[in-house]
């Protein structure tokens, strides 16, 4: 079984928003909607302030609540085990948006369907990286199959101190996407 996902090295992320705009351009995401949203965090008190950014997108959960709650099979796993949305099957009930623990799904008013990060499936299926990974200004985003030790994503995790590898809060859904964050840069609050 493969586990394709994006790994983000938050030690490097500078909050430049290139990934947000890349995603909008590549996927035609409407104003006000985000398949990929960069959140800024600050911790501590001046002058001992820490600041870091977390780009958030579909975490490619092992046990994805969105797939589980979808009444029509619009939210599904493809042959590569990637969580996707078939917008033609979407009836707009938005249960998946409520079920997603991370709020990374968005409602496309124009086509009346739920959408989310596809890992740029149309690019990755022809051997390219997702747009956000390609353009990332600080080269802090890595894409690949986490079960393949030779993927960029696996290599980034292998290079990092295991103590600094984190996941979004797991409420039984087992998010696959991973983040690297060193304690000097910020404290991970979501384990």
């Amino acid at each position, binding site marked *: 079984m493969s586990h394709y996902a994006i790994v983000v090295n938050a030690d490097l992320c500078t909050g430049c928003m290139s990934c947000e705009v890349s995603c909008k351009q590549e996927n035609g995401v409407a104003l006000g909607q985000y398949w990929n949203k960069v959140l800024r965090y*600050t911790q501590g008190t001046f*002058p001992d302030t820490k600041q870091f950014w977390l780009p958030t997108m579909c975490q490619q959960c092992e046990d994805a609540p969105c797939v589980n709650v979808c009444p029509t099979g619009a939210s599904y796993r493809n042959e590569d085990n990637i969580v996707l949305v078939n917008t033609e099957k979407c009836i707009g009930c938005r249960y998946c948006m409520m079920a997603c623990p991370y709020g990374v799904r968005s409602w496309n008013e124009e086509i009346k369907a739920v959408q989310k990060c596809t890992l740029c499936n149309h690019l990755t299926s022809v051997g390219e990286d997702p747009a956000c990974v390609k353009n990332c200004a600080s080269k802090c985003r890595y894409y690949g199959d986490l079960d393949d030790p030779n993927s960029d994503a696996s290599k980034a995790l292998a290079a990092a101190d295991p103590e600094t590898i984190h996941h979004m809060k797991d409420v039984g859904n087992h998010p696959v996407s991973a983040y690297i964050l060193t304690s000097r840069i910020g404290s991970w609050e979501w384990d």
Partner: protein
Amino acid sequence: MKEHTLTRRTFVKAAAAVGAAIAASGTSETLVKADKAFAEGDSGQEEIVSTVCRACIAQCSVLAHVRDGRVVKLEGDPRGPMSKGSMCAKGLAGIQALYNPMRNKYPMIRTGKRGTCEFRRASWDEATDYVADQLLDHINKYGPESIFASTGGGGNPHISGPIRFINTIGSPNNFEPGCAQCYLPRQTQARLVYGGGPDDNLSIADSNVLDFYDRESEVEAAVLWGAGPSWSAPSMTGRTVADLRNRKTNLQGLKTVVVDPRLTADASKADVWLPVRPGTDVALMMCWIKYIIDNNLYDEDFCKKWTNFPFLVDPDTKIDLDAGVIGGPANNFEYVVYDNNQKKAVVMPYPYPDDYDVALFGEYEVTFSDGTKKTCKTGFQVLKEACDEFSLEKAAEICWLDADKIEEAIKIYVNNVSTLIHGLATDQFPNSAQAALAALELECMMGHVEKPGAALQRFGVLSHSPGIIENDTFGMGCYQNLITRDMLNKRLVGGHNGFYNWQMAHIPTVQQAIRTGKPYKPRVWMERSGNKFAVIGNARSWYETLPELDLIVHAYMYPTSFTIEAADVVFPLREWLECPKPVKLMNWIFPRREVTHLFETADETLYWSRLIEKLAEKGYQRAIDSFKDEVANPGKSHTINGGNMQDGIAKGWRWAYDEDDLANLFCNDLVDPDTEQPMSWQQLLDKGPFEYAPYDEWHQYYVYLHDDGTGKPMGFGTPSKRVEPYSDITVKLGRTGYPFALCNEGLIELDPSLSVEYEPVPFYMEPHESPLYDTEYPLSLTSGRVPIYHHGTLRNSPWLREIMPTAEIWVNEQDADKYSIVNEGWVKVESRRGETYARAVVTENVSPGVVFLERFWNPELLDTDPYGSWNAENVNVLTKNDAPFNDVYGTYTLRGFQVKISPVDKCPYDVYVEPKQFSVWLPQYSDKTTEPTGEATWENWQEFPDDDLVCQIKAE
């Protein structure tokens, strides 16, 4: 050169030949290419073309996807040696900039009052004719100095364009709101102290510090002093610094110290963050100098052999003693030093003799040829005494820092292979020259010059030349042969002679001249940039000056507040996706392509060409001359040390006739390394990006040790061939304009009445408005980059405005409590110049007592409330443009002045905040529009014209 038909081009040449009395018969053919516009049909074929971004001053390599003539996608080009496939939000927004429905599409002439949107459409021929007549009228009545130009660094600039224009007109005055407030101090001081080329200095954001783009660089630590590479050019400077930080995983690579009042992205990654009080950096730099001297941490060997620190200084003139004054050979790179071995003041030959042991500090008696004796200090001694009061504790007190943290930062600097990267911050308050000098002094003391890892490098000096004209470089490409002694003496620099380096004028002095008519009255303003009111200090003072001006011409890609409030004539310029130009990136040449071309827009340089061409048609001799190759390229250039100091006035070039001609002019001496034949623009396009020199040949350290051909080392491009951190050349700059007073006579001395005194070593200036004693305005303001906007650009990009829809003022939590400010709530911000509004970010990212506010303006108000468009959310109605100025560079105060804040329910102006509001600026493609009526009303501005007005898309 034979011409067989009377084209406009031959007309100018013929006119030049016969003295140009026949001007009135000039042809009136449209200057616009009338090609059928849009590619027909929908083939679905997509081409990918390589080009180079110009959304900011970095130049990242880009792949543009083009379908049926339309640019549909941008992404980073992995071949780019500096951006390596990355592309930032500003660059990606290029597609929304290109197809923005608010593009200026054709020339327009005002029909209503300034401050209204009433214009009529005009042809290029009519509009240039209209402007040229008024220019000639003013030249005849009041002299060419009644005309001034201005430009700005935002929005695909060719900085040299307006300089060449005023050179041609015969006026001395062009200004730029950056300049004295951005890069002029650091760039000029580096030329004076180090003697590298125009781009060899400590500013990473200006495409320097090139060793950082080499992953094998030995650099271990960097001090980012007022520099924020992550947000200046995220995909170039930000990318490479991130890469170095993570050379060893989990940020165990490059160590960094960041000096910035604000917790920037770079500060948040730093090993030590020094949140210096805005405007006090020089006190901190002088503390570092003192600490390094007191603890003997400087590079003694380098200081003795390769700096002017040991030279003895004439106490009366402040100038280093040339060997000639004690009977040695004069002007032969030999100076008077005290030799510990000979126990007396002696001549130090070049290069440093091994049997010498010169004194770096102390004062010594020198007997001059005429028998007089003087007690003379070494340059290092003078610097040491200047810095003596700035102990760690004193600096901590002045700068609101912790003394231990300062010491920790210095230790990172001195205990690693390190360098100091000097950013914009200190160029924005009146202590600018001193900060620039002190930063260079630190690097010279530490021997961080042309060493592995050092910022100061002259890569490429020993390799093949790129051959192209890089006219974006400041000072380059001006018409030296058209500048007269009189023009130099008349330039409105206000005693700030550093402006001569960039051939620019001092903004407050120009404004004063307009208001008072003294020493003469500028009356016509030729402005090329975005929204001047958003970027110029104390913008309201300029608004009040507008009625004094007879004619204001604005050229840009979009209407801005300046267009509506000020412009009488508007010219449409091209976006970066429409402009052809070869671009040097390290040892590579990349073509920036004319990927597409919309409407009647012109490349900026060609816009200036067209105006000059029209003046030539009307018989203006200087304009006629300016099209002659022999005038443009005098074949001589001013140098110091036989060319070591690249003088900034390189090979000249005439005005261009069209975009292809311009691109070919830019290609200049470009040579194809495979065939060793000269390359045309078309050949460059066919070839695509290539290396003009092998990397190892280009990337060479220690250029100064290279043999100069006579068996001696080349040295540095300074008068002494050593680096000159004791900056007596700055003293000479004040007295005579040396070495920048360049005109058709070569290097001259300015009129003695213009002589002023500058200091050879730094001094600290407490901010004029200071939190130490200002009770009415208690908060010190700092500014700086956000990653998604460059200067005043892109506030009309939906993708970017939804990320940052309003100006943000960062307020510390303590101050938020004190002044009842809530996070995301609207805040009224007031200074002694005016008031504006921003939304609060309540944060621990700034100190109590400090607020951060970046530039902003509101294109959505242009038609309904033009005054509001630049007053609603604009830090530059707060900034200060009156004295004190920096002595050398005339810098006014954009940071480190005082404001007060109070909460308001909402912004009193009707600004856009919600993402959907920005949909009015989503791309509109030109095949969906109607014919404009010609009555250029605001509504018509937003219409896209019929196909036949849209120029041919060129997809290479």
